[in-house]
């Protein structure tokens, strides 16, 4: 199985201002691509475009050499997107939240898998509390449990380190690196400096142009 997400001459305009222009990206298996830039430089917009949520852009997207429009279904079943908002229901317990995501991803209904995923993000013992009663960091961890629950090759993560404590950050970073080592890819925006590894690449946005560097 291959994994290749390409963007050709990507450009996006917001309120008469170009967030980025002529952005070429080529993401293959085993990479961690960190999108960086100041606030308002279009990081979230770029992630939304690359995850197929926004159609309001110029340029072309390809998934495994196929135009995104044709490859959309295959793309979506390879994608795990964690947005700025957690996508976690405050009135449901972490277990119920994960049960829905498991069903939506087409996985088998398996409570042990959900418990293991919650345990993996340090939420053992909080499975049956309403998520709204948990702290912001714990709510973020419920969303992060999906990384283990639904195995997908491409992770698109928008500020996944928000509200996570120091140890959690280290664990998550290790998880991203492990995912890249296993042949997955990670697209991530964060203000947290990631450890330098051979898999890490940077894309810098800001002031209307974009720099791609190794």
């Amino acid at each position, binding site marked *: *199985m291959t994994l290749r997400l*390409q963007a*050709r*001459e990507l450009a996006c305009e917001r309120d008469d201002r170009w967030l980025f222009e*002529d*952005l*070429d990206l*080529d*993401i*293959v*298996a*085993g990479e961690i691509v960190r999108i960086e830039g100041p606030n308002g430089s279009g990081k979230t917009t770029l992630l939304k475009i690359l*995850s*197929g*949520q*926004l*159609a*309001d852009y110029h340029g072309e997207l390809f998934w495994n050499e196929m135009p995104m429009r044709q490859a959309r*279904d295959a793309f*979506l*079943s*390879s994608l795990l*997107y964690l*947005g*700025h*908002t*957690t*996508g*976690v*229901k405050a*009135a*449901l317990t972490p277990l*119920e939240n994960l*049960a*829905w*995501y498991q*069903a*939506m*991803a*087409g*996985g*088998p*209904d398996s409570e042990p898998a959900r418990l293991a995923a919650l345990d993996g993000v340090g939420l053992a013992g909080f499975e049956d509390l309403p998520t709204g009663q948990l702290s912001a960091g714990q709510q973020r961890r419920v969303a992060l449990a999906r990384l283990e629950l*639904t*195995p*997908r*090759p491409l992770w698109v993560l928008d500020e996944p380190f928000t509200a996570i404590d120091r140890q959690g950050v280290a664990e998550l970073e290790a998880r991203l690196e492990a995912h*890249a*080592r*296993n*042949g*997955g890819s990670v697209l991530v925006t964060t203000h947290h400096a990631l450890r330098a590894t*051979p*898999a890490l*690449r940077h894309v810098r946005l800001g002031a209307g*142009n*974009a720099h*791609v*560097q*190794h």
Partner: protein
Amino acid sequence: MPMSSTEATVSKAEPATSLHREPSGGLRVALQATFRRDLTLLLRRRGEVLNPLVFFALVITLFPIGISPDPELLSTIAPGLLWVAALLAALLSLDSLFRGDYDDGSLEQLLLSPQPLAALALAKVAVHWLLTGLPLALMAPVLGIMLSLPAGSYLVLSLSLALGSASLSLIGAIGAALTVGLARGGVLLSLLVLPLYIPVLIFGAGAVQAAILGDSITAHLAILGALLAVALMLAPWAIAASLRISING
């Protein structure tokens, strides 16, 4: 300034097969899960479920006090009153249909799931009808007594409201989906949706009126059923398209 594309320096490792698991459970599992999730959510926020019902009861209670307690006058206007009040009560509950999902980000997850969005939206609308339209239809006969609704039309009232409110939920969900991205979309939602509610109102109230007059009700109910069939066929696609537009905005 144009930048050349960069090829990755890392070797293209062959991904482990465990990373990519084809969705196996399919649409039925996703539909059941969405239905169950929305039902649980609404049952945990009972205020939201009770709100339209309380509104319905209050409006109908105030009419005899405000107009006149004369049973003859009340029984003439009862079908229309009950239907208008139920319609407004249903409208009241629409704004929250996708709002919660939009605010906490589960709507974008819904749109990114590999399942067809129209079917998932239909599951959400079904929950809305089950906890709004159906209770309104079951409650209406009790309020009908208060308006001296002639005996023999109670069953028709419930039946027409049950059929009609399903169409109302489906049509209203299109409006709710279109306005979910707006901070205060409530007024716009009413303006968008009310004109489309009028045929349902005419034939719904007409069915009850016909039952009171002793006419045949089959024509009215058949048209309500036809409206529901059309709404069931077209609304899910319209809701899905509207949600995509709202998320794009």
